[in-house]
């Protein structure tokens, strides 16, 4: 089932967390290039699945630099940055998705919540589409509301449910997100064997998080054997060579439809990269996000 706009969205109950209101000006002033560079990648906890890049030299990545992240088709992807209080700043990747409120970003759940009912990352957060070497060509969109699949929180962070959503406010120019950059369609319930374009902003070696990268046309190769142990639909594996910071980056099919996000990998080998399957839980999450006014 492919969804365009807000058509055929499943019913959804109240969920998610409203963040402290922040104006576009405040967000723009706060999320300076220096702060974005300081932000550390948020990674899936290592007791749930593989996570950190222990030996960057061993990485043989297909993650190629996008020549112009501000070009149509690429500018819907961006950096998600979060303030984590005394822990500094965290970062992930995200993708703008079509919705009636024109403000929905899809990312990984572990970028927003640590895998429990109450452990949200509630500080300042924002989406910076098409970020490139300090440039923010479409401005900074402050986050207003965040949510994850409910099963992510009720299963103690099963990686098979590692999908989150964010609703953002207007940028400094007064534009809504998808008015400014466009939006991806979103699909769920599709067969697993797809060809994915994996987007993201990897920030760990050998990358620096300063520009968007892309693995073009990576093929589904199966699932992580460990995925069987955790609740939820078996995840998806592709070969790309992402590192921390690319979490939440969109996996696009047919060039314009998001059907997965980066979740984790085992980085010191020729590891595949794993992302959750987009099933009914993702549909429900999307349903809640598009209803946010």
């Amino acid at each position, binding site marked *: 089932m492919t969804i365009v706009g807000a058509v055929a969205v499943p019913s959804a109950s109240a969920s998610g967390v409203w963040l402290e209101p922040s104006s576009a000006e405040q967000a723009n002033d706060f999320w300076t290039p220096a702060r974005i560079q300081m932000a550390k990648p948020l990674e899936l906890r*290592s*007791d*749930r*699945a*593989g*996570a*950190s890049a*222990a*030996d960057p030299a*061993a990485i043989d990545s297909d993650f190629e630099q996008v020549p112009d992240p501000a070009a149509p088709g690429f500018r819907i992807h961006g950096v998600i940055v979060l303030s984590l209080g005394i822990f500094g700043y965290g970062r992930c990747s995200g993708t703008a998705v079509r919705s009636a409120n024109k403000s929905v970003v899809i990312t990984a759940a572990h970028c927003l919540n640590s895998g429990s009912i109450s452990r949200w990352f509630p500080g300042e957060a924002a989406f910076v589409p098409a970020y490139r070497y300090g440039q923010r060509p479409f401005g900074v969109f402050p986050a207003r509301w965040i949510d994850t699949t409910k099963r992510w929180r009720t*299963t*103690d962070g099963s990686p098979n449910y590692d999908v989150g959503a964010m609703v953002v406010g207007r940028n400094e120019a007064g534009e809504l997100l998808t008015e400014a950059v466009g939006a991806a369609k979103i699909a769920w319930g599709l067969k697993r064997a797809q060809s994915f374009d994996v987007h993201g902003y990897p920030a760990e070696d050998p990358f620096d998080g300063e520009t968007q990268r892309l693995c073009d046309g990576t093929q589904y*190769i*199966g*699932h*992580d*054997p*460990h995925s*069987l*142990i*955790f*609740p*939820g639909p*078996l995840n998806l*594996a592709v*070969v790309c060579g992402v590192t921390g910071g690319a979490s939440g980056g969109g996996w696009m099919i047919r060039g314009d439809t998001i059907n997965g996000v980066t979740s984790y990998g*085992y*980085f*010191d*080998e*020729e*590891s*595949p990269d794993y992302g959750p399957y987009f099933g009914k839980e993702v549909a429900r999450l999307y349903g809640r996000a598009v209803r946010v006014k």
Partner: protein
Amino acid sequence: MSRRALVLGLLCSILALGTASTASAQELPLSLLPPISLDTEVGPPLTPERGFRTLLTVDAPGAYDVNVVTDGSAVALRVSRTSGGKWGTATYYLARGVAQPERLRATFGKLGKISMRFRESRHRPWFGKRRDCRGKSRFVVKRGVFVGNLRFRGEDDYLTIRTHRVKGSILSVAPKCLPGNRGRARSSAALEDSFTGFVASDRDGVESTAFGALSIRERLVYLAQHEENRGKLGILHMAIVGDRGELDFNESITVGKFSPGGPFHGTGLYRAAPDGSTTWTGNLSIDFPGAPGFPLTGPAYETFLEAGF
């Protein structure tokens, strides 16, 4: 998490538990998750998901022990073999299905399937208190029989099971337990001593193989692991050997020779060249249940050697 850190972590945890025999194949972890952290102190209380573990034990022909266990959302048929507490091998056939405390249903691909229900015996449940859990009655064990159907035919017919009634138990775990304090503390201390750790690992897509060796305090542990998927069936092979076999390095630890002994066969040879390149060759292999003579060397392997003095 890096595969070599996982393997070394597991090796350390095995040593920290005391002897290899305490980590026999009956107790091999279902997977290498979670790894122990090599430098972690005793942590704060964990509040894991309220869980259960169902276990049934099948009378199997030959030298194998066969159990069906639940782990999270998976049903695992575990075929294991041990020898005098010195080594153990196990193969887990992991499938999705119904993994409820009193109901097991799963299909192990072409190898078989299980559909069984629990009938509690008239004996009273056993309420226990685990050292690492807080409060009273932190876990409950119900004993009884599972009735229904269990059919399994291993690869190349190495094992055939057909049964309708087997003994089993259901362990319900309380929510508030502490992490494995003793193991972590001792493993941290152990690493302060001189040690040699070696891992060779290979990955082909989602399929991966790892061989590890750890020598510390005159103790020696070997471990091998292989993971693969066959459709929606996951197969995990594991083996542990304790205090057997040989491990020889030259003084500059640029050449190493690994001969673990049964259930391993042959020898693995590690060489590090002056330019930093390494090779992992030899005829080292292992007999996993259902995968005899599984090769553990080759040019595709990445190697990792760490020695403390």
